[in-house]
């Protein structure tokens, strides 16, 4: 027992009255030992973040721990005074948040912000502090620490910022490090570097690390022990090997089963099918005019993009953030005006169509957006929003209602949902509503723009299955935009890899992922977490 850094015993945190369940966390017990990474896994709302906040003494005022104890180095954190907490935080225990931009103060240089930790918790001379900061920046492998020291957060990339946050957390050599989804907001290649750093820190610093995540592949990459949470309770815990390869609890099995496989369900594609969409030489650049302080800048967001999609085919477009995927989609839909090129749907060039005549072709291409919370108007009923499309194309109301009912059945929602408002649906349900809305006008091409990225794995699996069913049933052509290569591998027939607005590689998905030609594709593939882990086939049917 003396060896544990953190030992949580029977922790229960109450939710305010009127919430969907009485406790945010119920009877939770876990241990973190030095030199160990404990991963807490669960879907959104499982209470994993509440656990980390309770340990840090950062619970929101509405949530109160009602039972149990959180023993950190032998003392109960829950019984400590606010000042006692403050002495521990940043000193003996430290936290790394999900969003590195909001965790740093934009008004101070990162050097100042790291030094502040020393000012609070140690008595060091100015030059000694500075030396320690530079050493820390070197430890988290930031290039040119002197320059970084004087940089402001906005001058650094997301990965660099996360390193700064980690450096801050490490400043006082804490015995416990809590990381709450530290890589979720980062691109895969950056995520890989940060994960590697966590592994190194564990070995070099000997600290205990509590790592909160929703991604089983990340767990497979770094965890020593795993705690699986569902609705505030621990359903399973054990070593990484046990939990990942021989899960016993049905919920864990279901979660692991939902992890996207890197292999695709074999599917016939008709190479002779007619071409549904042909994009030629598409160009879009963003111009920032010269100002007093900075010269004019032009960013080519989409540069000379060519591709074709055959009827019934699913084309994946993959790339990291800033690769131009979203701009490409907006250009295809003419939500953004491209500067040059042609988009042929059948024998009609969408880009030469006058804005006024565009409506007729809107029917052909529909889109499902990424954010299930931003893509439904909160002030209109679902039915009203589903009817929007058919109404605009002059379909009689009664007929449109009939169609809406049918589509609700197809996306596995109740008819009654049509009379409700979006706030009554979960993220996954909203995404299904968005799919139904897009299908209301019977498009021939459906674009899914990161349509499953914001969803929990099990929900993600449901939506992917639904999309596959619909595609087969209606013979849809799909463009599937994603940053997640695992998901792409599962649903796409062929793939385009984009980097900085250009297509660096394209071809059938099996070929591209098995024998990547471009340097960038290889980099992306090797940065996938959890490659050493063969997802066990549990035979669960969700």
């Amino acid at each position: 027992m003396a060896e544990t850094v953190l030992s949580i015993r029977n922790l229960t945190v109450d939710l305010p009255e009127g919430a969907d369940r009485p406790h945010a966390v119920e009877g939770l017990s876990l241990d973190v030992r030095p030199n160990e990474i404990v991963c807490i896994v669960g879907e959104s709302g499982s209470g994993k973040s509440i656990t980390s906040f309770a340990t840090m003494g950062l619970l929101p005022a509405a949530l109160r721990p009602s039972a149990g104890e959180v023993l950190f180095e032998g003392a109960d954190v829950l019984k400590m005074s606010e000042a006692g907490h403050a002495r521990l935080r940043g000193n003996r225990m430290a936290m790394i948040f999900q969003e590195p931009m909001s965790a740093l103060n934009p008004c101070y240089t990162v050097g100042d912000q790291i030094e502040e930790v020393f000012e609070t918790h140690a008595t060091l001379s100015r030059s000694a502090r500075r030396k320690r900061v530079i050493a820390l920046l070197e430890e988290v492998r930031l290039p040119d620490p002197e320059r970084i020291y004087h940089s402001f957060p906005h001058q650094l990339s997301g990965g660099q910022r996360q390193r700064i946050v980690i450096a801050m957390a490490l400043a006082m050599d804490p015995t416990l490090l809590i990381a709450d989804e530290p890589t979720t907001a980062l691109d895969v290649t950056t995520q890989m570097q940060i994960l590697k750093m966590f592994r190194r820190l564990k070995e070099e610093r000997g600290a205990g690390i509590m790592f909160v995540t929703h991604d089983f592949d990340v767990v497979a990459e770094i965890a020593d022990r795993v705690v699986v949470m569902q609705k505030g309770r621990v359903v399973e815990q054990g070593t990484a090997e046990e939990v990942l390869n021989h899960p016993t609890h049905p919920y864990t099995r279901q979660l692991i089963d939902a992890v996207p496989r890197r292999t695709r369900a074999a599917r016939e594609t008709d190479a002779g099918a007619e071409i549904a969409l042909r994009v030629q030489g598409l160009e879009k650049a963003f111009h920032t005019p010269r100002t007093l302080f900075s010269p004019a800048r032009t960013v080519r967001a989409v540069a000379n993009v060519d591709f074709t999609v055959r009827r019934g085919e699913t084309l994946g477009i993959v790339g990291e953030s800033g690769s131009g995927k979203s701009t490409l989609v907006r250009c295809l839909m003419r939500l953004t005006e491209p500067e040059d090129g042609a988009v042929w749907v059948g024998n009609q060039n969408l880009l030469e169509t006058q804005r006024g005549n565009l409506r007729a072709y809107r029917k052909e291409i529909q889109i499902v957006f990424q954010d299930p919370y931003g893509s439904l108007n909160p002030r209109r009923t679902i039915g009203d929003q589903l009817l929007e499309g058919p109404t605009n194309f002059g379909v009689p109301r009664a007929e449109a209602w009939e169609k809406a009912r049918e589509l609700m059945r197809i996306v596995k929602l109740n008819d009654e949902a049509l009379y409700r408002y979006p706030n009554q649906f979960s993220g996954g349900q909203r995404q299904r509503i968005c799919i139904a809305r897009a299908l209301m006008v019977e498009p021939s091409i459906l674009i899914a723009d990161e349509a499953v990225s914001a969803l929990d794995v099990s929900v993600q699996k449901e939506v992917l299955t639904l999309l596959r069913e619909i595609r087969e049933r209606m013979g849809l052509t799909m463009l599937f935009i994603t940053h997640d290569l695992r998901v792409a591998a599962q649903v796409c027939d062929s793939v385009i890899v984009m980097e900085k607005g250009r297509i660096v590689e394209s071809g059938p998905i099996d070929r591209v992922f098995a024998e990547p030609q471009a340097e960038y594709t290889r980099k992306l593939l090797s940065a996938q977490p959890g490659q050493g882990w063969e997802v066990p086939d549990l035979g669960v049917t969700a």
Partner: protein
Amino acid sequence: MTTAVISKPLTPRRVMMRRALRHKGFLMAGTVLALIVLAAIFAPLLAPDDPYEQDLLARLQVPVYLGGSWDHPLGTDSLGRDVLSRLIYGARISILIGLIAACVSAVIGTTLGVLAGYFGGRVDKVVQFLINVRLAMPVVLVGLAVVSLRGGSLWVVTSVLGLLLWDRFAVVLRSATMQVRSMEYVAAAEVLGAPLHRVLFKDILPNVMNHLIVIATLEMAHAIILEAALSFLGLGVRPPTPSWGLMISEGKEMLLFDSWLIATPGLAIFVLVLCINMFGDAIRDITAPEGRN
């Protein structure tokens, strides 16, 4: 215990109703405002005397709380008119001016702001120019100029205020519209071939409505104060119309001797404006609780 609440479907309207009924500021300010509005509507029934009737023999009678008689609970002014009656009738003027000026401004400002926010580019530049022009004109000065040229009357004052107070509507709704415009449901509606007017009226306006209502209450209070100020300067509504600003103006010579003459309408303006502002804040809390700080 919560099942009763959950079983009813939570439409946005029902959620707001629930928040409203739990909001102390909303209930308090709402009650006072309702009382003032009712008093204004039923003035002929409530007012003890004719607000225009002079009684020079009963001039400057002190109110009850300073030892006066119950014939004139709030005393009489320098022409012997009953202050309570004038106060009740004066509420009509204040509320009328506040409402009409706020509505006219809301229409102008919302149109400009929403168009600027939705279209951006050149439209936005023109609107921003108009806003700057408007901001460069001091309201009271322009109001004074127009009133002194056209002569003061209720309608002149109201329309001048209505045509001058739209700047805040335009500024706030412009940025609110820009924000809503970038939401994906607007893009989805466009992609579904929705014509412009449907996007504006079904997707944009309902989602900027809470800003609109809050600004409207602020501007209503603003207009009431400006009317009082113009009347005080002698360029607002014309005597003997009972207006709270005019009552202060008429009492100003007596400031050192009979200060209650000014205190009474002054307090009325204070309470009305305070309640309208509180009401606006409450509406903001109720429609967008995340915007509170």
